[in-house]
């Protein structure tokens, strides 16, 4: 569904993506992992056409996305930070997205119920708590039935009940045969949900494969440790020191 070839992107002097090539051609949940600044968000934004790569190409369902915008009709996106216009009501925001896309959402009513948002529909977005805003964010991302879902840190600020419902929702979408790309720092979430991992480090794909193959390759029983091993460079990868620093950051976040 999505093919990426030799993707390069820098911001000023900083090279964020250094020749990424990969394909997501089977449905399933793919977790995109990596320390801060490894290029996860840039990769996602390149697929969405927000960041414009200086080299390489991205194909969506066989078509180069450069200069196009209509392919985004087939992608639903959950941004990392749930901030919306303060003075719009929840209902109006959802109406706005429907207006822009020009199609009726399939699952709106059910999602509002699932995340208990009914009492907030007529509240201004600026007056909602962070967690409630994230639920609104989830509703806007899941309300269409697009074949591809891109979720940037979907678990941000969710309470345990909402988190359980999100997981159930993700499984449901996967069973429908969709492709889900998810970035996250929560390793337990990855272990529970992901079919495959893509680990980015310093703008390269450092590892791609299933959870089991990662654990096997690094001879660890748990994902967190396996990733710490990658970052610490104990197995011979990335021993330039930068990796160690990144590992510290990742571990601190836990």
């Amino acid at each position, binding site marked *: 569904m999505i093919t990426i070839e030799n993707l390069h992107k820098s911001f000023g002097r900083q090279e964020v993506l250094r020749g990424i090539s990969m394909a997501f051609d089977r449905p399933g949940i793919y977790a995109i992992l990596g320390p801060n600044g490894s290029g996860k968000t840039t990769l996602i934004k390149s697929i969405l056409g*927000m960041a414009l790569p200086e080299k390489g190409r991205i194909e969506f369902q066989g078509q180069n996305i450069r200069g196009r*915008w209509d392919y985004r009709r087939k992608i639903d996106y959950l941004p990392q930070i749930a901030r919306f216009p303060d003075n719009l009501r929840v209902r109006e925001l959802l109406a706005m997205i429907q207006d822009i896309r020009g199609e009726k959402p399939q699952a709106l009513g059910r999602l509002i119920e699932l995340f208990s948002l009914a009492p907030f529909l007529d509240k201004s977005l600026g007056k909602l708590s962070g967690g409630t805003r994230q639920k609104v964010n989830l509703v806007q991302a899941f309300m269409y039935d697009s074949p591809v879902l891109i979720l940037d840190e979907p678990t941000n600020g969710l309470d345990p009940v909402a988190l359980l419902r999100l997981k159930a929702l993700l499984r449901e979408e996967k069973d429908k045969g969709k492709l889900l790309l998810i970035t996250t720092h929560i390793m337990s979430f990855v272990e529970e949900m992901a079919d495959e991992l893509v680990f980015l480090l310093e703008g390269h794909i450092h590892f791609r494969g299933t959870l089991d193959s990662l654990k096997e390759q690094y001879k660890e029983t748990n994902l967190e440790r396996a990733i710490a091993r990658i970052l610490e460079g104990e197995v011979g990868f990335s021993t330039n020191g930068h990796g160690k620093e990144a590992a510290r950051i990742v571990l601190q976040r836990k």
Partner: protein
Amino acid sequence: MFKILKYSFFDLTRSRWAYIYTAFFFLFTVSLLWLSGGMSKVVISLMNVILVLVPLIATMFGVMYYYNSREFTELLLAQPIRRTTIFFGQYLGLALSLSISLLLGVGLPFVLYGIFGSPEVWNFMMLLIVGVFLSFIFSAIAFFIALRNENHIKGFGLAILVWLFFAVIYDGLFLLALSLFSDYPLEQFAIGASMFNPIDLSRVLILLKLDISALMGFTGAVIQKFLGTALGMAVSLTVLSVWVILPAWGIRRVANHKDF
């Protein structure tokens, strides 16, 4: 574009700042109308305030609005629409909401005071037209600057500097040039120079309409002498339109090449 515009407009017209802006103009205009004698005096006093304040507020709002909706813009960018649609929608929503605040704040008191029965009605209209032009021009400039600068402080600083330049510094430089080169014929230079400053141009436009030569200043007088009132106004209005189009074109250019 209209869809984005509609919701930006809803969002902005409900903001506290829009109310404050409208209320300020309303109270200011009411007190001027009640305190001073004729309408033409009020138009002139208001002109001086509008020429400075409208660009300042449009500049501040433009930068603030862009930075505040940064994250939401990312969500819009992921939707199946063109980039220019998003940014023109947001810009027009902003410029329109500022213009409506001004029209309501200044317009209502005049209507209540009975402007439509007065011979001043066209002078008053010119004041409003200029106010709307300035809102569109300076919010476009601010939007353009904010788009080009990710750093908020830098963006704010630059935008305020641009306002300061057009509102204050430009006049100083202009006067300096006039006195330094007073031995040369300066008429053409003066006409040219006033075209490069939308605030000056607006002032000239209102004063041409009011036909008060004592207030016109050198440029106004020169424009009236060389172009005549009617042509002078037509030229000024055209150049003001160019002042809207230029930064709007800049917004389009930057938006299409920017990484978000």
